C-alpha cells in the first residue's frame, strides 16, 4: 500500500483539509448530546437557570445573602455586582428588565466571564440555599426537619422573630462559626448539586424582581436549540465538503494512477508483457484501480472519521461521567470479540467461495464451449452431475458463511441496546448519589453508542484494507517494473547505406527466467530485394527470431545489425520506423478501415492506402462494403473475418513503405488463391525491400531467395527449396509431411 504513497502526494493538502474538516465535523456531532444534556439539566430541570449566580438581586435580598459569607467572599461578590437605583444611568432600561426596581434598588451582575462565575457559584449557591432554608424555617417552622435548621433551636425563638436580623446582630465569632458549619454541609453536596438546588430560589427571586421566568426558560431552550441547529449545519457543511474532497481525491488519484500505469504498460516490451500476461495487465489497469478509488473514498469518509469520532467520544463521555467508562470498555471489548469471531470464521471462507465460483464458472464455460462434443458423446447427464457438484459445494459454503454473517446485525444491535440499558441502570444510582445529572446520563448514552459505532467502522477497515492492498501491490508491481529494453542515452542514427540489410551475428536468445536458450548462435544476412523465409516446427523459434528485429525482445548474446548499425545503439522509434510488421495474431483497432491503415502513417495519401490494400488483396472485400474505406471496425476487428483481418493487417504494414517487412505467419488465414496472389503482388511491388516470411507451409516459401530451417532454436539448413530438399533432412521431413512425393517432384 505504501508503495503508492508518492502518488498520493499531490493530494496531501486536500487530504489534510479533509481531516481538519472531519475534526470539526466530529466535534460538532459530539457536542450535540452535550447541548441536549444542557436542555434537560438546565432548561427543563432548572427552569433555564444555569448558574447559582443570579443576574439581578434585590438589595434587601443581597443583604441577607452576604450574611452567609465571609468578609473576603462578601467583597468578591459585591465587586461583581453593580447597585442600580433611581439615580443610576440607564435606570429606565433597567426598570423595563426588572419592574421591581421601582420599589427598591437592585444589584445587577456585571458582565463577567465564565471563570468568574465558576468562582462565584459555590459562594452564591451556599448563601442562596441558606437564605432560602431560613426563609422557609421562618415561614413555617414545623415543616422543616430538625436536621436542616443550621443549629437553631426554633422552639426557643419567639414566633415572628426576624432570623436574618438575629443573624446580622450575632457576634462576629459566632457568625463565622455558623458560616463554617454551613460551608461544611454544602461542600459535601458538590457544586453541581448546589447549583441544581439553588435554581428554585433563584427562580423565586426572579419572580420577585418581576422577570417573566417562563420566557426565560423557553428562551434558554430555544437558544440552546439554535446553537444545536448551527452545529448541525456546520457538521453538514463539513460532511459535504469532505464528500467533495474525497470524491476529488479518489477520482484524481485513480486518474493519475490509471494514466501512469497505462503509460508504463505502453512502454513495456514483450518481456514485461510475458511476465505479467495481458489479461493480468488489463485487470491491473482497470479493476485494481477502481478498487483503489473505492477504498480512497471510504478511507477519507469513514476510516479517518471513525478514530476521531471514537477518541473524541471517549474524551467527552469520560468528561460527563468518569465512573462509567468501564461500560464503554466492556461494550467495545464485546464488540471486538464478536466481530473477530465472525470474521475469523467467514473471511477464510470468502476466499474458498471465490475459488468455488471460479469452479462453477469453469464447468459452465466448458459446457458452452464443448456443447457439440458433449452432445456428440451423449454426456449431458455426466456434465449435469459435474455441475451439480460444483453448485452444491458453492451453495453449502455460501450458506454457512451467510448464516455466520447474519449474526452480525442482531449481535451489534444487542450490544448497543445492552449498553444503553447498563448505562441507565448504573447511571440511575450515580444520579441518586448526585454524582451526575439525568441529562449527563442521557448524553453519556449517546456517546457510548457513537463510540461503539466508530469501533464498528474501524473493524470494516480490516476487511477493506487487505483487499485493497492486494490491488495496490498489483498496481505498484507494474509501476515499479524496470524496463528491460531502453533507448540508449545518446542514440545513434541508423546508417543509410545498404538500406534494409539485416544481419544476425552469433545471436543467442533466452526468455527471461527460462533455463535454456531458445535460439542458439544464429548467423545470417538478409539483403534488400530478397525474401528470407523461416520454417520449422512449432516451438523451433521462428517467431522469436523475427521478433528480435524490431526489438520486442533483446538478444541475450551476439548482435543484430540493421544497415550495419547495432539495433541496440539506436532509438526504438528510429528502428521501428524502418520496419513494416505483420503479427501472427492480426489485431485491428476500433475505428474504420481507413484509420487502421493510417495507423502505420497518419499522413499517408489516399492513393498509398488504396495501393497497400491492393497489394494485400483487400480491395475486393473493401469495395464490397457499402462504406468502403470508411467501414467501421469494431474492437479487435471482431466484425471482419479472420482472412479479412489478416489482409488489413498486411495492408497496414504496407502503408508504411518500410525498407524491411516482417510477415510472422501472416498468411495462415488466407485461402490458397489469395495467398498466391498476395505473394505475387508483394514480389512485384516490394522489389527493393527486405522481406521476412515466417510460415509452416512449405508451399508459401518454395520460391524464397533464402530459406532458414529452424529446429530447436538452431539453423539446420540455409538455402533455396531445391537445395534444401537435397541437403536438409528436417526440411525434407516437413515438406514430405505436407506434400506428396509427386507434388514435390
Amino acid at each position: 500500500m505504501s508503495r503508492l504513497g508518492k502518488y498520493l502526494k499531490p493530494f496531501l493538502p486536500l487530504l489534510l483539509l479533509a481531516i481538519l474538516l472531519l475534526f470539526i465535523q466530529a466535534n460538532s456531532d459530539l457536542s450535540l448530546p452535550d447541548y441536549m444534556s444542557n436542555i434537560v439539566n438546565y432548561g427543563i430541570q432548572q427552569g433555564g437557570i444555569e448558574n447559582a449566580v443570579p443576574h439581578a438581586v434585590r438589595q434587601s435580598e443581597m443583604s441577607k445573602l452576604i450574611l452567609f459569607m465571609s468578609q473576603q467572599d462578601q467583597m468578591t461578590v459585591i465587586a461583581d455586582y453593580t447597585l442600580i437605583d433611581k439615580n443610576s444611568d440607564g435606570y429606565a432600561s433597567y426598570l423595563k428588565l426588572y419592574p421591581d426596581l421601582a420599589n427598591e434598588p437592585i444589584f445587577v451582575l456585571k458582565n463577567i466571564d465564565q471563570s468568574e462565575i465558576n468562582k462565584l457559584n459555590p459562594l452564591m449557591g451556599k448563601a442562596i440555599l441558606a437564605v432560602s432554608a431560613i426563609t422557609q424555617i421562618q415561614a413555617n417552622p414545623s415543616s422543616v426537619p430538625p436536621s436542616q435548621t443550621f443549629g437553631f433551636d426554633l422552639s426557643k425563638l419567639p414566633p415572628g422573630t426576624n432570623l436574618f436580623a438575629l443573624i446580622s446582630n450575632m457576634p462576629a465569632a459566632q457568625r463565622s462559626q455558623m458560616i463554617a458549619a454551613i460551608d461544611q454541609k454544602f461542600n459535601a453536596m458538590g457544586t453541581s448539586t448546589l447549583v441544581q438546588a439553588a435554581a428554585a430560589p433563584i427562580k423565586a427571586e426572579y419572580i420577585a424582581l418581576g422577570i417573566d421566568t417562563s420566557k426565560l426558560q423557553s428562551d434558554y431552550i430555544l437558544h440552546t436549540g439554535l446553537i444545536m441547529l448551527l452545529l448541525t449545519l456546520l457538521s453538514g457543511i463539513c460532511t459535504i465538503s469532505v464528500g467533495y474532497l474525497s470524491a476529488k481525491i479518489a477520482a484524481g488519484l485513480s486518474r493519475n494512477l490509471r494514466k501512469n500505469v497505462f503509460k508504463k504498460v505502453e512502454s513495456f516490451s514483450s518481456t514485461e508483457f510475458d511476465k505479467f500476461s495481458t489479461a493480468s495487465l488489463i485487470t491491473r489497469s482497470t479493476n485494481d484501480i477502481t478498487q483503489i478509488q473505492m477504498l480512497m473514498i471510504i478511507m477519507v469518509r469513514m476510516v479517518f472519521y471513525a478514530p476521531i469520532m471514537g477518541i473524541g467520544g471517549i474524551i467527552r463521555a469520560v468528561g460527563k461521567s468518569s465512573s462509567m467508562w468501564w461500560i464503554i470498555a466492556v461494550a467495545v471489548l464485546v464488540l471486538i470479540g464478536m466481530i473477530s469471531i465472525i470474521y475469523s470464521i467467514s473471511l477464510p471462507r470468502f476466499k474458498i467461495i471465490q475459488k468455488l465460483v471460479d469452479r462453477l464458472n469453469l464447468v459452465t464455460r466448458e459446457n458452452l464451449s464443448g456443447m457439440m462434443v458433449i452432445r456428440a458423446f451423449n454426456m449431458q447427464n455426466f456434465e449435469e452431475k459435474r455441475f451439480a457438484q460444483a453448485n452444491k459445494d458453492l451453495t453449502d459454503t455460501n450458506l454457512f458463511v451467510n448464516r455466520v454473517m447474519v449474526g452480525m446485525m442482531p449481535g451489534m444491535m444487542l450490544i448497543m441496546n445492552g449498553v444503553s440499558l447498563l448505562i441507565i441502570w448504573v447511571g440511575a444510582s450515580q444520579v441518586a448519589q448526585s454524582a451526575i445529572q439525568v441529562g449527563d446520563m442521557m448524553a453519556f448514552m449517546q456517546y457510548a453508542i457513537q463510540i461503539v459505532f466508530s469501533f464498528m467502522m474501524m473493524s470494516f477497515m480490516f476487511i477493506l484494507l487487505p483487499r485493497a492492498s492486494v490491488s495496490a501491490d498489483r498496481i505498484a508491481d507494474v509501476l515499479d517494473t524496470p524496463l528491460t529494453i531502453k533507448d540508449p542515452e545518446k542514440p545513434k542514427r541508423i546508417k543509410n547505406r545498404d538500406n534494409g540489410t539485416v544481419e544476425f551475428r552469433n545471436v543467442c536468445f533466452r526468455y527471461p527466467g527460462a533455463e535454456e536458450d531458445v535460439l542458439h548462435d544464429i548467423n545470417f544476412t538478409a539483403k534488400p530485394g530478397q525474401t528470407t523465409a523461416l520454417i520449422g516446427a512449432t516451438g523451433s523459434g521462428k517467431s522469436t527470431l523475427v521478433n528480435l528485429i524490431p526489438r520486442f525482445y533483446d538478444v541475450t548474446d551476439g548482435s543484430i545489425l540493421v544497415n550495419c548499425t547495432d539495433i541496440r545503439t539506436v532509438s526504438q522509434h528510429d528502428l521501428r520506423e524502418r520496419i513494416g510488421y505483420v503479427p501472427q495474431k492480426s489485431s485491428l483497432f476500433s475505428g474504420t478501415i481507413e484509420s487502421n491503415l493510417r495507423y502505420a502513417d497518419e499522413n499517408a495519401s489516399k492513393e498509398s492506402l488504396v495501393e497497400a490494400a491492393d497489394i494485400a488483396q483487400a480491395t475486393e472485400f473493401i469495395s464490397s462494403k457499402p462504406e468502403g474505406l470508411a467501414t467501421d471496425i469494431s474492437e479487435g476487428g471482431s466484425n471482419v473475418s479472420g482472412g479479412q483481418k489478416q489482409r488489413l493487417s498486411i495492408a497496414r504494414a504496407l502503408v508504411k513503405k518500410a525498407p524491411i517487412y516482417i510477415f510472422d505467419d501472416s498468411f495462415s488465414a488466407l485461402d490458397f488463391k489469395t495467398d498466391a496472389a498476395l505473394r505475387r503482388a508483394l514480389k512485384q511491388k516490394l522489389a527493393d525491400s527486405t522481406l521476412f516470411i515466417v510460415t509452416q507451409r512449405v508451399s508459401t516459401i518454395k520460391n524464397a531467395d533464402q530459406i532458414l530451417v529452424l529446429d530447436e532454436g538452431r539453423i539446420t539448413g540455409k538455402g533455396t527449396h531445391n537445395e534444401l530438399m537435397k541437403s536438409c533432412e528436417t526440411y525434407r521431413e516437413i515438406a514430405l509431411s505436407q506434400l506428396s512425393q509427386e507434388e514435390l517432384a
Partner: protein
Amino acid sequence: MSMPNRGPMAGRGPMGRGGHGGPMVMSTEKPRDFNGTMLKLFKYLGAYKVSIIFVLILTVASTIASILGPKMLGNATTTLFEGVMKQIAGTGSIDFGTIGRILLSVTFLYLISAIFSYIQGWIMAGVSMKITYRFREDIFSKINRMPLRYFDGTNHGEVLSRITNDVDTVSQTLNQSLTQIITSVIMVVGVLVMMFTINWTMTLVALTIVPLSMLIISFIIRKSQKYFKQQQDYLGHVNGYVEEMYSGHIVMKAFNGEARSVEQFDKSNDMLYEVAWKSQFLSSLMMPIMNILSNLGYVAICILGGYLAIRNAITLGDIQAFIQYVRSFTQPLTQIANISNILQQTAAAAERVFEFLDEPEEVPDTINPITVPVIKGAVEFRHVHFGYSPDKIIINDFSAIIQPGQKVAIVGPTGAGKTTMVKLLMRFYDVTSGAILIDNHDIREFTRFDLRRKFGMVLQDTWLYNGTIMENIRYGRIDATDAEVIAAAKAAQCDHFIRTLPDSYNMVLNEEATNVSQGQMQLLTIARAILADPKILILDEATSSVDTRTEVLIQKAMEALMKDRTGFIIAHRLSTIRDADLILVMRDGDIVEQGKHEELLERSGFYAELYNSQFEHPELSPEVSLPAMAAAD
C-alpha cells in the same frame, strides 16, 4: 480475453448492499414486464411458503419488540428524573424498584428481538441459497435441452452472467432486501404509532421532515444516477481502450504508436475523472443531507419537548424516547425510497433468468423411436434443403448415397460452411426439408441419444475438460476400463507422450489445457473417438497450427481411426481428397459439386478452379505443389 469487471459477486455475502455506510446509489435497469416477472418469482418461491411465512412473522415480531424498547426506556428515565426532582425538593427518592423492573423487561424485549432477527436471517439464508441452487441447476440443465442454434447467436459470456450475476442479484434481494423492506415498513409504521401515542404535536413537527427528505432523496438518487451511468459509460470506454491497446500491444509498438495511444487515453481518462468525481460527490451527498434533516428533527424535538416539559405536557423520558424514534425514522425511509429501485433491479435480473428458462427447446425426440443395435454405416442424403434461418436456405436439394466404409471429403474455401454437414448428420440442426437416412432409417426416427452414439467426432477445435487425461479419454465411453482407455491411447499414438508427462494418465489438464500442446490435444480427442468405437466418423483435418512430427502422428492415428468406418472428413490434405470415395465441394454454404477427384477436374467447375489455382505461382513454377485448399474454418 473477456473483461473481468463483471466478475462473479457471490463473494459479497451479506455485506453487499444496504445497511450502514449510507445508501448505495446504483443505476437501475428496468424490466420489460415487472408484474409478470414478479409473479413468476413468487411462484418459484412457492415451494418455500412455510419458511417464508415463518420468516415474515419473526421479522414482524422482532421489529415490534425493538420498537417498544425506547418507549419503555423512556419510562425508566422519567421515573429516574422524577425521583431526582423529589430528592432535590427533599420530598422523596428514586424508585429503583420500578427502574429495575422496566430495565429487565426491556432487556427481555431486546433479547427476543435479537434472537428472532437471527433465526429469521438463518432461515432466509437457507431459503435464498436453495433458490439460488435451483436457479443455477435449472439454467444449466436448460442449456443441455436448447438447440445449438440459440448459442450461435448468443455470446457465452451472456449465458455465464445469467448463471452467476443475475442469479446472485435475485438471491441477494431474497436474502436481505425482502426482510429489509418488511422491517423498514413495519419500522416506519410502528415508530409512527409510538410517536403519536407519546405526543401528537411533536409527531406532526417530526413528520414535516418526511416529505422534505423524500423529495431530497429522490432528487439526489435521480441526479446521481445520471452521473453514475455516465461514469460507468466512460469507465467502459477507458477499460475498453486499455483492453484494446494491451491486446494489440505488439502492433502499437511496431508502429511507434506509444505517444498517440497515451494521448488518446489521457483524453478519455480526463473525461472519466470529470464524471467520476461528480458521481462520487453526488452520491456522497445523501448521507450528510439526511443527517442534517435528521438533526433538524432532533433539534426541533429538543426545543418543542423542552417547551412542553416545562408545562408538564410531556415527561423527560418521552422526549428521550421520541428522540430515539426520530433518529430511527430516517434510515427505513431511505430504504423505502430505494425499494422500487431494488425491486426493479431484481425483476430485471429475474426476467433475464426466466427469459432464458423459457427459451424454446430442441424438437422433442420421436415418441416411437426405432432401435437398431448394430448399423452398417450407410448414409443417404435425400433432397436435403437447409438454412440456418428459414428464409435463407443455403443447401438446396442435396442428394447423395454413401456406402458403409466409404470416405467422404468435404472441401471448400474458408467460411464455405463445411461444418454444417456435421451439424446436420448429428442432428444439432434439423434439415428444413428432405431427409438424412442411416441404414435407410430417417435419423429423426432415432432418439438423439441413440443416433449420436453411432457417431464419432474429432474436431479441429479440440475440446477437453478440466480433468485428468484418463477421464478425458474415457469421455468417449464412460464405462470403459483403464485398460481399454490405454489401448485407445495407444491406437491414437498418444500413449507415448502421455507417459512422459508428470502423473502420466492422471495429469489434470488445466483450464486452457496449456500444459499439453495443440497437437497432443488433437491426439487425445482421437483416442476419445477410438474408445467410443462408432460406425460413422466425422473428422476435421488439422491445419498448419500443429508441428510437423505431431502432424505425422495425427495422420497415423486418424488412419487407424478411419479403418472400416464410414467417414466424413473436412479435408485440407490433397492426398485425403484424392483418395476419397466422394468429394463434396462447398461454396457459400451450399454443396456446389460432388464426385470423385478426376470427375470433378474434368467438369472444370469450382473444384477445378480451386485446384488449378495452385499453378498461379509468382514464378509460374511448373511443379505441382500446395496441399491446403483452405485453412482453419
